[in-house]
């Protein structure tokens, strides 16, 4: 008799779900078994995917069947990969430092470039464009007053929450370290906007978690035929 993959999947899914659900009681061996199993499987799976969808197409194939340019370009990362793998041995870990330095440098550059082009400019532009009168005509906002209101609120929110993070301060005569009064006022307004933002996001996370909780319980009930 051949056991269908769906059945195996369903059984595994049911067991794992129950085991992890037991965490509601508290940390327990059953929960531990489930999460260690999950960690091992997910890590093994991701490593296999990394091999087949990263190293295989980008390193192995060019070295095996690529042209001269591809091979020459693949040699450098190959050496880098070997250097990184040297870190397996603590004594040789220093050898891998150049490769890690390369990664750190690239990561820093990507973070800077992505931050500027992906967040700062778009967000600034969006904040400014909130006052675009053309949007009134397109009906994206509720009339002129709506544009003033929404744009103004967003602008105040952006400026005040930016001011909230201001770090520079001075020592007052009474010994307390405070920022300038004007900044303190802006920061006070800013923390209201920050609180609202985090609260809204928190509600979103809770609704997402609740949805997943419902989905898991639903799957359990479905598996045992109660739903």
């Amino acid at each position: 008799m051949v056991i269908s993959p769906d059945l195996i999947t369903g059984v595994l899914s049911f067991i794992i779900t129950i085991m992890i659900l037991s965490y509601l009681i508290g940390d327990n061996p059953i929960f531990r078994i489930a999460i260690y199993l999950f960690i091992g499987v997910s890590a093994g799976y991701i490593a296999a995917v990394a091999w087949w969808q990263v190293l295989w197409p980008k390193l192995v194939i060019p070295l095996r069947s690529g042209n001269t340019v591809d091979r020459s370009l693949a040699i450098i990362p190959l050496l880098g990969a070997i250097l990184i793998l040297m870190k397996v041995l603590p004594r040789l870990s220093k050898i891998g430092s150049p490769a890690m330095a390369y990664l750190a440098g690239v990561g820093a550059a990507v973070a800077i470039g992505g931050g500027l082009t992906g967040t700062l400019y778009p967000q600034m532009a969006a904040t400014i464009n909130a006052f675009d009168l053309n949007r009134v005509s397109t009906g994206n906002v509720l009339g002129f007053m709506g544009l003033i209101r929404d744009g103004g609120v967003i602008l105040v929110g952006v400026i005040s929450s930016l001011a909230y993070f201001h770090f520079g301060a001075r020592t007052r005569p009474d010994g307390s370290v405070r920022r300038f009064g004007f900044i303190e006022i802006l920061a006070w307004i800013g923390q209201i906007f920050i609180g609202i933002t985090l609260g809204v996001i928190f509600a979103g996370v809770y609704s997402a978690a609740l949805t997943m909780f419902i989905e898991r319980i639903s799957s359990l009930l479905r598996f045992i035929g109660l739903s």
Partner: protein
Amino acid sequence: MTELVIIGLVAILLLVLTLWKRRSPQQFRSIPALASLIRAIGLSVEDGSRLHISVGHGSLITPRSGSGLAGLAMLRHLAERTSSSDRPPVATTGDPALSLLAQDTLQAGYSAAGAEELFVPTTGRLTGMSPFGFAAGAMPVIRDERVSANVLMGYFGPESALLTDAAEQENVITIGASDNLVAQSILFAGSQDALIGEELYASSAYLGAGAAHTASLTVQDILRWLIMVTLLLSAVAKFMGLI
């Protein structure tokens, strides 16, 4: 090209201020979470407990790497401070490359403290390769390894709630910061002291990491006000139809 010019100016400003800050340190506003962190560091050294620093799972080749690098800067400083503890700090990550950097950072911190021989590579751990795998792997560290404080600094997602919950059940203080708003909201609600947004990048400066870090905060303040003024003027100009 404009971006490069801006970045160049910021870099020059940072270098100049770094040299200047060495002579005239500046005062910064108080951040309670960082004050708690400083106490946690002293406590971990005194009572021989362990400090758990997690730098998240932000890949180095994604924009998420910024918070990871900030977490590493903090890790370096904490390693240097707590390397003398009976139980050295343990760093957990959810990204392989980040875990290697965490090991190098720990080792550098130990050597800076003159205790490189005490460095154990396994104190820099990759606890999982997926976000929730990382969190699930870090939970036992919080529970089983007599951790006195958790420092979560890096890129996290909703899985950070599992870490704060595990720490809460162990009555262990958690100080968290992330560049992800989801993690920020969770850490704000679930941790003893939460660092919000930009404060993540200020933590190392507040711990006395050096002039470069304090200069960074001054640069951020300068840029902050430039952005604010730009936004105001641009908004008015946009409203007036000038741009």
